[in-house]
């Protein structure tokens, strides 16, 4: 591997023949992968526990244990690592058995460098996708729990903003709450955006954001439409924003606010990410509603207390 360059991925090869290691290593390293070798299954499994490999290639017949054991243990204990079986004794039965156990592929020996690279690339893509799906589910669960654990409106607004940025790995976010009296949206909190951008001016009549109020559907505005759809297109570009998505926060069909996410690149969410964002927005809306109810009662108490002169308050307490 060329020094100083970050490897595409880390691969562990399990095989008892040195010559296999040498040829596989050459092919994979030339393609930019970092390769480690193990001659025994037990040795390989402890290596997998110590450093997390992206993909493990295992021979079927290894002197100490079957490569099938390696597949089973890695699938069970290391879900972030993909595993592929390769063998000089390819049979239909071992192919089916290994893949039922969770091997991502099965490659009969001998194979060409192109075949090896194709199998590794495909396995790597599947592993990365599965890892990302699990990570996003985990992040979502944590985010959902976080926003449900607070009735403090300010804290909650910050949690919503930070959570959605972490969840979708975007530049920034903002929450706007709908003020019934003024019939307008008011910026309640933001995350990852500069003060300058936030203070650009009155946000109330922004075009795309009011459209969300009416359509009650998420609206995406990419940079080429900024001039048409945004009130402050130049400021958005200066802030380094290339895509904005506005998601209504609703309770039983009534909009109580808007959650906006700002992306430094064109905004392109997968269907899964969009689903997650909508689920999150629904939970966020409920949490906000609860926090606002709590806040109102607290304000009522403060209001009453403020309305009573000090000496009287003291006498009430004594009474």
């Amino acid at each position, binding site marked *: 591997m060329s020094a100083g360059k970050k490897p595409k991925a880390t691969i562990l090869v399990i095989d008892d023949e040195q010559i296999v290691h040498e040829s596989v290593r050459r092919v994979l390293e030339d393609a930019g992968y970092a390769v480690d070798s193990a001659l025994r299954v037990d040795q390989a499994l402890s290596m997998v526990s110590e450093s997390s490999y992206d993909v493990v290639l295992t021979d079927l017949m290894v002197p100490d244990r079957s490569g099938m054991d390696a597949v089973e243990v890695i699938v069970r204990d290391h879900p972030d690592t993909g595993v592929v079986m390769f063998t000089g004794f390819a049979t*239909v039965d071992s192919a089916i058995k290994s893949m039922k156990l969770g091997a991502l592929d099965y490659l*009969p020996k001998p194979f060409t460098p192109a075949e090896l690279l194709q199998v590794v690339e495909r396995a790597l893509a599947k592993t990365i996708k599965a890892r990302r799906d699990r990570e996003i589910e985990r992040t979502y669960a944590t985010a959902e729990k976080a926003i449900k654990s607070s009735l403090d409106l300010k804290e909650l607004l910050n949690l919503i903003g930070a959570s959605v940025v972490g969840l979708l790995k975007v530049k920034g976010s903002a929450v706007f709450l709908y003020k019934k009296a003024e019939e307008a949206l008011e910026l309640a909190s933001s995350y990852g955006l500069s003060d300058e951008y936030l203070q650009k001016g009155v946000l109330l009549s922004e075009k795309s954001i009011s459209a969300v109020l009416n359509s009650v559907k998420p609206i995406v505005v990419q940079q080429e439409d900024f001039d048409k759809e945004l009130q402050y297109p130049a400021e958005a570009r200066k802030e380094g924003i290339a895509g904005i998505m506005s998601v209504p926060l609703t309770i039983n069909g009534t909009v109580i606010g808007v959650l906006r996410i700002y992306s430094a690149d064109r905004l392109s969410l997968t269907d899964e990410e969009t689903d997650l964002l909508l689920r999150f927005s629904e939970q966020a809306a409920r949490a906000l509603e609860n926090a606002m109810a709590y806040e109102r009662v607290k304000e009522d108490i403060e209001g009453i207390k403020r309305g009573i002169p000090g000496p009287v308050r003291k006498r009430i307490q004594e009474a």
Partner: protein
Amino acid sequence: MDKKRGKILVLDDEQIVLDSLSRILGEENYAVTPCRAGRDAVELLKQDRFDILITDLKMPGMDGLQAMESLYEIDPDISMIMITAYATVDSAVKAMRMGAVDYIRKPFTPDQLLELVNKVMEDRKAKFEKRYREDTFEEIKTAISSTLNLREVLDLIVQGVVKIMKVKGSTLSLLDKTRENLRVLAYSGLSREYVEKGPLEATRSISDTILRGKHTWVENAVEDPRIQYPLEAKREGIGSILSVPLLVRNKVIGALRVYTSEPRAFSEEEVRFLYGFAEQVALAIENAKTYEDVKDDYEALRDDLWDYFDRDGLM
């Protein structure tokens, strides 16, 4: 007539294979739809839902692998089995990579086929039950987080857990101020008589385990010495009881229990699910309590004021 055990789409270009598979599976009460070309299978799947696809590999026109690809696209939930007289490593790997649940060689015995089909149906049942639990959990979580009314929150929790876990009943108890007694505040699926049988002592082993933040499983409520009220449990028809603690910031605030009518074990997944559920609802309970407390303060203050200005009760 009995309810069919499952719907199976069989795709093979040879009529004799279709006939024999239809007979073997039909006798075991599966509803079989035979089909001789991949195109037809695609049309059938667009109109109807099937549990399992059994497809041959080599067929004129669309082969088995191509058919699997098209069918999977229409219904990713269909379980696919490939059968072939020309088994090769290459086609086996391709079929498995495409998501086949198995790949078997012709000829096979009726028993081999039935064993496989029955196993696939069981796996599907488990998969769909898990999905049902997850979906229902989402709905119930949303309902619970839509209210700050403590009574409503508690009722939604016990009703929800009975619905999701398909158990006989459920109770939710919270620790009183002394932290010595667990008081049942909501229940579902159980008689009032049973629920009000008496206080649960925190010093008894089960409550003690809960207070230490661990779950307990009573396999047989009538015979287990840890049970404080075995006779009442028998009268109520209770088999097993699973209790998990309700934790807020690592502090136990109460317990969530599920009751089955037959003595049985709980799967690791069920236990994990109940923990997850308890974790989520504990937060909702805490929020509702916080809200009620501040509302009580507000009302008390208002009443005090009223009393102060109207000491003689004239107004």
